[in-house]
């Protein structure tokens, strides 16, 4: 039996439903509105292009980070061995000139300053010579790879192969901004990102997916893009003859694993001027050595000590003045280690002192080995007789350089570095025994005199370097070519508008 509903009830239901739907709509619109607010609350001042290399443009959006970053221009801090002052390492240790005879590093090698000087210092270094034009000079374009956020800009335009092609001077006008924001950050999200193909490829070859890394791991990997051992692979898969920047990590990170990698492909960086040994140059295996140390094992990243958090006006942010933690003990070491500053500094210096003691010993042995090998050639030794000896020199110096070039290695991983140096000493002495036997075979039994290399100038004269000529070439380059680069760069950058919101 159906009872008739009164029509006002129907109208009431209608009205209530309408109100509910209206409220739902209001809620939905409120959610949308407040979501839209977000993009205004956190709206940056400048719209960054994907390739924006100018650090000062990024700096408009991230003032605190930028202000701390340009403090990498400060060169007033010297620790016992390093710091951010420019130290002429060849003056400090003239033995290096002998070790690198026949290679650019014997001309000029200075302790690196801050990121702020990346472009200046590579331009000023005698190693890059005094090119007179785009196709002149001793170094390939590859040498620019770690100097500037202009590099990812160019690589994204032309591809890495094209970038590595040609002489260093060929790209001089393109690269003017020192290492900075775009090298590690993605402009859209400010996520840490890897912009250098060499690291990405090395990780891929190790079977690691670059998207699988945690934020904490990325806080070291962005550094590893440059602070790693590398070589210029001319037999690369892309184009024969182009010095393609490659990390020798396929077997692993350790000194032996990389050595095996190089031996297997019979790679050499140069032939030593005195001993004729097929040499390897270790280039700052900072990341590899750090990975073997206790801090890495405990999950501490590079940024945790070299870029500790900082508070300003109640805001916590990452201090972008990358520097020696010894200049900022309070925010680096003391966050975890509750010891007095001077105790912590002593702990670091103790490790460095002990490592350097044996490193110097090894250096001297290798200098002797080079000089003795040269003597052996002079006395008429044959290739056959020298083969093992030269290989020994190669291995000993590779071990020395792996330890020496890994700045901070004696702190990052003192046990590993100690082990590497010990094995280098064993290798060097083994080689010198072979040399002594060879001398006997050649009818000699006297000590080969240790050269007088008490100063940089004497050492450079000993290996026959004409430094004055190099300096003159550099000077001419700075008068003739460098201003042209700067002019072209300015013209280019003037054409880039800064899009402000």
């Amino acid at each position: 039996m159906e009872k008739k509903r009164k029509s006002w009830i129907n109208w009431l239901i209608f009205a209530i439903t309408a109100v509910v739907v209206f409220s739902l709509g209001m809620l939905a619109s409120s959610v949308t509105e407040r979501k839209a607010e977000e993009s205004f609350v956190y709206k940056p001042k400048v719209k960054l292009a994907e390739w924006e290399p100018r650090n000062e443009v990024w700096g408009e959006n991230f003032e605190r980070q930028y202000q701390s970053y340009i403090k990498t221009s400060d060169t007033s801090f010297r620790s016992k061995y390093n710091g951010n002052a420019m130290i002429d390492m060849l003056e400090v240790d003239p033995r290096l000139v002998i070790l690198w005879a026949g290679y650019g590093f014997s001309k000029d090698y200075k302790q690196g300053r801050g990121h702020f000087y990346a472009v200046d210092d590579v331009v000023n270094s005698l190693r890059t010579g005094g090119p007179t034009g785009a196709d002149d000079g001793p170094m390939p374009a590859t040498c620019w790879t770690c100097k500037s956020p202009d590099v990812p800009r160019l690589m994204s335009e032309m591809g890495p192969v094209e970038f590595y092609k040609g002489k260093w001077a060929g790209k001089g006008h393109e690269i003017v901004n020192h290492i900075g924001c775009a090298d590690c950050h993605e402009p859209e999200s400010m996520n840490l990102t890897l912009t250098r193909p060499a690291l990405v490829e090395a990780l891929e070859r190790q079977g690691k997916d670059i998207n699988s890394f945690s934020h904490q791991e990325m806080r070291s990997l962005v550094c590893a893009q440059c602070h790693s051992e590398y070589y210029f692979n001319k037999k690369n898969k892309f184009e024969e003859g182009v010095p393609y920047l490659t990390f020798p990590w396929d077997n692993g990170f350790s000194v032996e694993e990389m050595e095996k990698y190089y031996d297997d492909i019979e790679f050499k960086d140069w032939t030593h001027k005195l001993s004729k040994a097929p040499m390897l140059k270790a280039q700052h295996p900072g990341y590899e050595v750090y990975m073997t140390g206790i801090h890495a094992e405990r999950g501490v990243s590079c940024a945790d000590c070299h870029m500790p958090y900082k508070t300003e006006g109640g805001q916590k942010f990452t201090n972008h003045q990358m520097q020696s933690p010894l200049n900022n003990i309070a925010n680096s070491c003391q966050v975890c280690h509750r010891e007095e500053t001077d105790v912590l500094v002593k702990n670091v210096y103790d490790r460095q002192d002990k490592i350097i003691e044996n490193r110097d010993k090894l250096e001297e042995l290798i200098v002797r080995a080079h000089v003795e090998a040269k003597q052996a050639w002079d006395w008429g030794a044959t290739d056959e007789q020298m083969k093992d000896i030269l290989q020994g020199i190669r291995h000993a110096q590779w071990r020395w350089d792996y330890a020496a070039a890994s700045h901070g290695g004696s702190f990052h991983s003192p046990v590993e570095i100690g082990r590497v140096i010990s094995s280098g000493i064993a290798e060097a002495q083994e080689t010198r025994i072979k040399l002594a036997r060879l001398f006997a075979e050649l009818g000699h039994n006297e000590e080969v005199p240790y050269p007088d290399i008490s100063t940089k100038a004497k050492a450079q004269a000993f290996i026959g370097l004409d430094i004055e000529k190099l300096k003159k070439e550099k000077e001419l380059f700075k008068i003739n070519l460098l201003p042209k680069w700067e002019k072209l760069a300015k013209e280019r950058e003037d054409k880039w508008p800064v899009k402000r919101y």
Partner: protein
Amino acid sequence: MKQYIKPPKKWRMPVAILLGAFIGLSIYLFKVSNATSYLSDAPETCINCHVMVPEYASWNHSSHREHANCNDCHVPHDNMIHKYYFKAGDGIRHATMFTLRKEPEVIKIKEAGIEVVQNNCKRCHGFVNENISANNWNIKDVHSGNGKLCWDCHREVPHGKVHSLSSTPNVILPQQKIKTPDWIKKQIENRK
């Protein structure tokens, strides 16, 4: 009963339309409010509302980032029912305040939340500070002046000292994926 639910013939059309609108709108609301994210423990959920960004950003610059997300500290973990009951209660209050624009310039933790967080400090750090008498205090002792909360001393853990809606102007909100530039990806693709 049926006669009250089933609309009379001539009403069926408008009722169907209204119900459709109602359900459609509900689905839309579900979508824009990112509703399913509230079931997860992802810290990004908490910044669905941008007033929580300063809390997110300060946590993201702290050592707790590696080991604890928002829910590890801010919801109870004694049992499942309590956890979701508390989470829902907090969530509804937050959503209401945010919708009505009643959020304060400085967000402060409420009484119930204090207890939850204190218990969660103990939950993880129990072993580390088992010899500290602080671990034997409960919230009642604190109220009667016979104890302290962990963050009465550890004042900056993990959100820092200063909280306000404007304390983190340059924060870039997270995107989950670490992006590699496309041209590098292409390189690798080409080589394979």
